[in-house]
């Protein structure tokens, strides 16, 4: 096998792995859990979404598989939460958080 074929193979493998990730098949080493199970202050890594409608919007807002997710605080009156995604802040409702599955 020549070096170029090998390189191409690795590239396409990488590409298909990504596709699989998106296709909502968990490619994880640990047991996946929804982000909503996290306590304020704890950190996780985004793996995938279990709802495509919310997932598509979250993706567009910069929540990506591999993003660092930290729960900062809950809203008063039992509302949503503030999460830190990489280096910016998002306000999410509970059900919006529920669709994020962590590694």
């Amino acid at each position, binding site marked *: 096998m020549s070096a170029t074929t090998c390189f191409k193979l690795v590239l396409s493998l990488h590409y298909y792995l990504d596709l699989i990730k*998106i296709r909502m098949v968990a490619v994880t080493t640990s047991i996946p859990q929804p982000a909503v199970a996290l306590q304020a202050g704890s950190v996780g890594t985004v793996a995938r979404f279990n709802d495509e409608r919310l997932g598509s919007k979250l993706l567009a807002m910069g929540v990506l598989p591999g993003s660092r997710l930290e729960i900062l605080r809950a809203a008063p009156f*039992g509302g949503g939460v503030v999460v830190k995604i990489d280096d910016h802040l998002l306000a999410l409702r509970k059900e919006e958080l529920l669709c994020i599955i962590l590694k």
Partner: protein
Amino acid sequence: MPARQRQEFVFAVVGNPNCGKSTLFNHLTGLRQKVGNFPGVTVEKKVGKIRLDGAPAEVLLVDFPGTYSLYPTSQDERIVVQSFIHPQDENHPDAVIYVADVSRLAKHLLLFTQIRDLGLPAILVLNMADVAAREGLHIDADQLSEALHAPVVTLSGRTGEGFDLLKLEMRLLMDAPAHPPKPELFYTLSDAERAVVAELREQLPVQTDFQAVLMAHHAEWLPFLTDTQRTAIADMLQGHSFVSLRAQVDEIMQRYDRFTPIVQRALQQQPSDKTTDFTEKIDRILLHRVAGPLIFFGLMTLVFQAIFAWATYPMDLIEGFFTEAGGWLKYLLGTGWLSSVLADGILAGLGGVLVFIPQIAILFFLISLLEEVGYMARVAFLFDRIMQTFGMNGRSVVALISGGACAIPAIMSTRTIGNWKERLITIMVTPMISCSARIPVYVVLIGFVVSAEALGGWGQGLAMLGLYLLGIAGVFLSALVFKYLLRTREHSFLMLELPAYRTPVLRNVGLTVWEKVRAFVVEAGKIIIVISVILWALASYGPGDSLARAEADAREVALTNQLDDTETKDLIAARQIEASYAGILGRAFEPAIAPLGFDWKIGIALITSFAAREVFVGTMATIYSVGSAGDDELSIRERMAKERNPVTGKPVYSFATALSLLVFYVFAMQCMSTLAVVKRETKSWKWPILQFVFMSALAYLASLLVYQLLG
């Protein structure tokens, strides 16, 4: 459709929310901007002219709503898609100025790659260069430009640095060939997408693949497609098993995969955590479970205190000016119908509009200041849960607060709410928040309910607060009713970016205030002036010679009672309005409102108030003919206090009547301008009519209850 023919070159200003887009737009256009609406919807459209040296055509800048991708979830964001993918669209730009925040470049490029794939020439603006440099963030613009196949400009919207370079790039772009070589797409189409694109190309004029892809995704709502085209596309998608949501996720992921390495190569240092640290510290207080809401209500109290306290002086000045001007005009033109219609009709109406400018200006100054700092997004977050209980969205809080000044801009601000049901409920209930137009009515009437000395001088203030709270209670109760009546299958989102706290750009605040004041004067002013003239006609004319007879009667009475000149004039005016068409209308109305404790004179004021509430005071002034003493609220109140019921001899404005009238004004839909805005926002007469009926019914029943229990 015919191709557009114009001598203008249109740049669209686009970017993600919070990228500093409006700061850039305001810097480029200043006061040379106009605010209108995108056709068919009431999404605000800002257009500004700019001067470019040697430009062959007039250069226009159109500010588009902030959006994250070309997969919209609100009406705001849809505008971007529909104007960008349809070359015949009235707002289709010739080129795009894409604004991205340097420190957030890794996220902000998503929409840029989509726009680039549509085939639109674009300049990438890296904004907030000053902040980035302070944080030790450096970016290689040339490398980025080469990788993205687009000119890249680094600038700072705050300091004004880099704008010359942007203008130069704009100028170069205008001279560039119409069909530049097409760079590769930022993602690879799937088999299903490729099949759909091929089929769409046969049926519709399509320039680029991505344009066809977006047509497939959004066929359901794109306004330029016909119903036949819509069904054809739907069948096509099914035939190729094209799943829109799945395709969206795939596409977005691929885009990130392609541009993330580009950004990493161009960034010479990774962004630091400094700004978020600072923001998180402040959020610890402002978003605290207990302190957060308390601080919010504290701030709102301050805002309202400011509106009341600061606005008094300019309002007195404006009122004084119009009283003087009216007198001067009458002196100049003498007596006659022309001087009367000018002074009592148009000038009085104009004064009634302009007097609200200080309050509106102060409210929007403070609200846009809070918005600029980044606080308003936090407010939406704090109250989202509560608002959801009542069928609304956290974003509704902003509309409800603005409703305290005027329902018109408040209702216009609901367009950021993506969910139709939540937006509609917010629109329907917002006019029940006591707006500034109710203040003069409250001021005149409150004295009949609570004396100035009550509760150590605090009584009237507390009563005022009570009226506001009554309105707020009405808002939430009727929101609940609507929540259970309205059905929807649409999704509701919060998903809100909380921007880092920043010092406000005063130019932005100033321009917002200027815009809102101008919109109020022009929009509401037109209607109020027309109504004022109609009112003047109704009050100045009567059937046959009834007015002349009323005057003769009055003169006789004045002679026998030896009244002086002023008193005679007042008596004539009072007798004449009784005999006029307005008086006749009021009397016809009386049986319906008698159970509420109102007489025919109040009836006239109610009729005229359906145009606008603030007309109440003016109408009272005319009916009780204190016109000669000016539009002073106190003199009207003194005159009203003397008013006796001709049958019983008791004061007309008893405790029960005054309270009943106050409650009526809290709930009643008495603003034609608001109804017009609701019609425009909901695109149907159904909702404003329903709003009018339910608010009037609520007002009637509440007043009936008050008067029957206390009267």
